[in-house]
């Protein structure tokens, strides 16, 4: 026994609550003007007053439309046991007219213990439907048609919708049609005849905001006092939980979560993950549990793949990126190898591997879908000659390099240098999409974007910096010693060019 058991039990209770939609959405049933009460009123008044009705439930996915509908139908079945029969159709499966009628007949037969024949034709099925509607009308039984993915029923000629809604126009039948859809303009998709017969009641399901969200989280996570858990444990747990919920950090976490997806389903997945991280020894939930649940919800699969890459694979990715920046025509394994060799020659790195090792690494990257072939045509050619393209962006490579512990400094330098564009128009291409300015990286743009010719004398120093680096990297096969000589020469060249422009007679090609 001891402390272990209450914590496990508490975990089980909370997890089973999170997986039970009727518990979650029954929270909303206490408000008098919530969608639950409105829907309940519509359906129960249709049943008791024996009149026909139709209603449309709209809202983004994961907001609980079907869960609330199920709750309401359960309640109604309890209150009026023999007066309701429910037929469920789904637009993904039954949007074809024949299929839908067959399914309706099958479900009606099931409800009323009749024999269903698969050989029945379309005419037979529709006759059966009409006569069932009449019979149920006489017996004061209401048939509730639930049409999920309602917008898919509106494709084509909408015969099923027309026949259902037309049957409801007569006194002898008693039916309710409930359409569930996530498209906001689902009723605009209806034909005008069908739209005229539809009663235009719409219930909008929206994700909960602010205070409602807070009370929902309390409702889910606070342990009940009448369970098998010891009382002192429950009160301690609840007190600690209330503290956490009032904490600013927790509110910040929930806010970040809601920035991309604010539906209830998303929140429930997050809470489930957080509860699974609960420390069973101490027996209480803490803010760290919630923090550690965030990455499991906001997964970035490419980053995780990059984290596990070997150094050689990272080299290959960086080489591909540089080839892309240089706008070379062909990017295949051979050109990558050339680029790789040039980096090795420039920086004298120790990571130089043989060609067949690199080929293995290349194939690994293909398998992991970080790169892929340009087109599917060249199956006959070997992998070395087919053109490849990157499937991840510059920004993601940069992030991945940072998160990879074993990444050599050379690659960082190379990627940082990618920030300095060769020509001014590169700035527009790479600017907005590739620079994470808010992270305070040192990829500053303005000064280096000025073209060489227009620079005045005073900005020469940083200008010099740029040309030095480019000189060092650009020349293939040159060692740093050569690079330094070239630096001196290029500096003197550019300086002298400026002098010539501003003071002395201008020479078109100045060679020192």
């Amino acid at each position, binding site marked *: 026994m001891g402390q272990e058991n209450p914590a496990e039990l508490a975990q089980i209770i909370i997890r089973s609550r999170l997986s039970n939609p009727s518990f979650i959405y029954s929270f909303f049933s206490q408000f*008098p003007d919530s969608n639950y009460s409105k829907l309940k*009123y519509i359906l129960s*008044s249709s049943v008791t*007053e024996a*009149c*026909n009705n139709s209603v449309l439930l*709209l*809202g*983004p*996915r994961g907001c609980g439309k079907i869960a609330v509908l199920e709750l309401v139908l359960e309640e109604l079945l309890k209150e009026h046991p023999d007066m309701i029969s429910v037929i469920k159709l789904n637009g993904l499966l039954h949007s074809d007219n024949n299929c839908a009628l067959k399914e309706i007949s099958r479900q009606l037969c099931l409800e009323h213990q009749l024999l269903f024949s698969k050989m029945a034709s*379309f*005419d037979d099925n*529709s006759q059966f439907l009409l006569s069932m509607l009449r019979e149920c009308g006489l017996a004061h039984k209401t048939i509730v048609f639930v049409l999920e993915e309602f917008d898919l029923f509106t494709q084509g*000629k909408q*015969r099923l919708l*027309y*026949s259902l809604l*037309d049957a*409801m*126009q*007569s*006194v002898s039948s008693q039916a309710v049609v409930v359409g569930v859809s*996530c*498209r*906001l*303009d*689902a009723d605009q998709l209806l034909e*005008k*005849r069908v*739209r*005229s*017969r539809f*009663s*235009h*009641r*719409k219930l*909008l399901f*929206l*994700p909960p*905001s602010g205070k409602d969200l807070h009370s929902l989280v309390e409702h889910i996570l606070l342990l009940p006092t009448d369970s098998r858990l010891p009382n002192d444990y429950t009160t301690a747990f609840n007190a600690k939980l209330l503290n956490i919920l009032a904490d600013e950090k927790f509110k910040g976490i929930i806010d970040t979560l*809601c*920035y*991309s*997806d*604010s539906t209830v389903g998303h929140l429930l997945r997050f809470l489930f993950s957080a509860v699974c991280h609960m420390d069973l020894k101490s027996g209480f939930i803490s803010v760290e549990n919630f923090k550690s649940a965030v990455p499991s919800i*906001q997964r*970035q699969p*490419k980053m995780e793949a990059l984290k596990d890459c070997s150094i050689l694979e990272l080299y290959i990715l960086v080489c591909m990126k540089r080839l892309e920046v240089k706008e070379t025509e062909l990017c295949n394994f051979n050109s990558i190898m050339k680029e790789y060799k040039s980096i090795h020659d420039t920086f004298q790195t120790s990571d130089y591997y043989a060609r067949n090792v690199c080929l293995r690494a290349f194939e690994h990257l293909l398998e992991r879908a970080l790169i892929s072939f340009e087109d599917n045509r060249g199956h006959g050619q070997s992998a070395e000659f087919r053109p490849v393209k990157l499937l991840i*962006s510059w*920004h*993601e490579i940069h992030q991945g390099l940072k998160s990879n512990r074993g990444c050599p400094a050379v690659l960082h330098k190379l990627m940082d240098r990618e920030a300095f564009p060769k020509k001014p128009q590169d700035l527009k291409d790479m600017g*907005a*999409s590739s620079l994470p*300015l*808010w992270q305070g990286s040192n990829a500053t743009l303005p000064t280096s974007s000025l073209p060489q010719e227009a620079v005045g004398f005073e900005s020469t120093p940083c200008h010099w910096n740029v040309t030095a680096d480019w000189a060092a990297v650009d020349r293939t096969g040159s060692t740093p010693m050569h690079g330094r000589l070239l630096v001196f020469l290029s500096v003197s060249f550019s300086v002298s060019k400026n002098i010539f422009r501003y003071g002395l007679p201008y020479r078109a090609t100045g060679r020192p």
Partner: protein
Amino acid sequence: MGPKRQVIIIRKWHFVSLSACSLDLVDPLCITYSALVNSIMVICILVDVEQLRAVKEALHVSTAPESVVCRENEQNKILDFCKDCIKQEKAGSLYMCGCPGTGKSLSMEKVKEILVNWANEDGVQPPDMVSINCTSLVNTSEIFSKKRHDRSTSSLQLLHNLYSQKQPPGMKMILVIADELDYLITKDRAVLHDLFMLTTLPFSKCILLGIANAIDLADRFIPKLQSLNCKPTVITFRAYSKDQIISILQERLRALPYTVFQPQAVELCARKVAAASGDMRKALSVCRSAIEMLEAERRDPISDFTSSSLERNEDQQMAAAREMMTNQVNNMVRIDHVAAALSKTYKSPVVDTIQSLPQHQQIILCSAVKLFRQGKKDTTIGELNKHYMDVCKSTLIPPAGIVELSSMCRVLDDQGILKLGQSREDKLRRVSLKVDGADIVFALQLVLFLDLYRQRPLSKLLQLLQWDEYCLVMVPTTLIRGYIDHRRQERC
């Protein structure tokens, strides 16, 4: 004590109530005056609920009224045509057209009844009536087999032969009513032609009445008939005007002894519906929703009443009962109920949904609006991503990566706000806006107004969109003040 029946007379109405049942539950031994007042109130409420229920039933679309008002002209024309054809034993075709909800099928039912009565009175043989709804036909040529009440496949040929020869004089006329005739339109329009041609054969005995929505169906789809000089007579059912709607509603409510609607409320409903579409079903549905609003309003004070009535003292109860009994207006549907019902029917849920979207999706919509302002109509996800990053940069929010962006675009496409095209690569899928840019700006302005103290980056977003170009929403200052106070209270 068993249940007692008490007869209470209030004004002109007689109420028979089982009020003693409720008194039994409270206090079986003593029926005090306050308890009596209680029960009176409950009775009032109960009976009013019954009244409202009856009114709702009278206003339901499926209850057919005894007399069809405002369609007498059209009905007379149809009747005259049918009577002519039957008397002269001649075939003919008639085409009825009009918008949905204008009483075409309803008039047909009435005409059928009247015809049978007239035929019986006049001693003429009543025709066989065949009513077909063309939506239930799998194959368009099934209509002919329906006419002959058998399933032979060459019914058209048989009918053709039948009508080309002279028959024995005792043969009855057939009156065929084909509803939703445009479902029979195929590419080669053969079926429609054949159907109407059957009435032009020399010895045909078939009177065809077609119903559809398009005014020019006869001209567009069966031009051949004009050359044969047997174009069908066309009767147009115009959309209802405001006065017609009012008279129809009053006709339906005339059967009930009490008035539930204020006259201005009925007029508002009729005016709005006539301006929008002239569809009678809409008007009936709006009236029923207005009654439901009234019921909802009355339900909340009731629950307060019955729960707390025991604690109140007698004087308060008497005053409340008197108020309930004398206040007639409370029981009627007023203009505000009808206005609320109209706004529920005609309002689109777009603005509400945009207001409740998560922040990143709102930013995506803003960047799309900005992008499309320069005259382009669609763009790719890659372009949208660039603009999205720009907007995020200037509002200091960390942006989501392109994978998350494309999944958020897919969510917006699901909801019908954006439209995504197909492409092999994710970045090249085409994106276009389905919602008007002005709606998006309006929705975000409202969010800004209601969140004045939170200082969200939305203000910067809207600055980007240069929202001072659009005229600001004229939100009344009382509303703003109310919200500011509300938020102040929340913070304390």
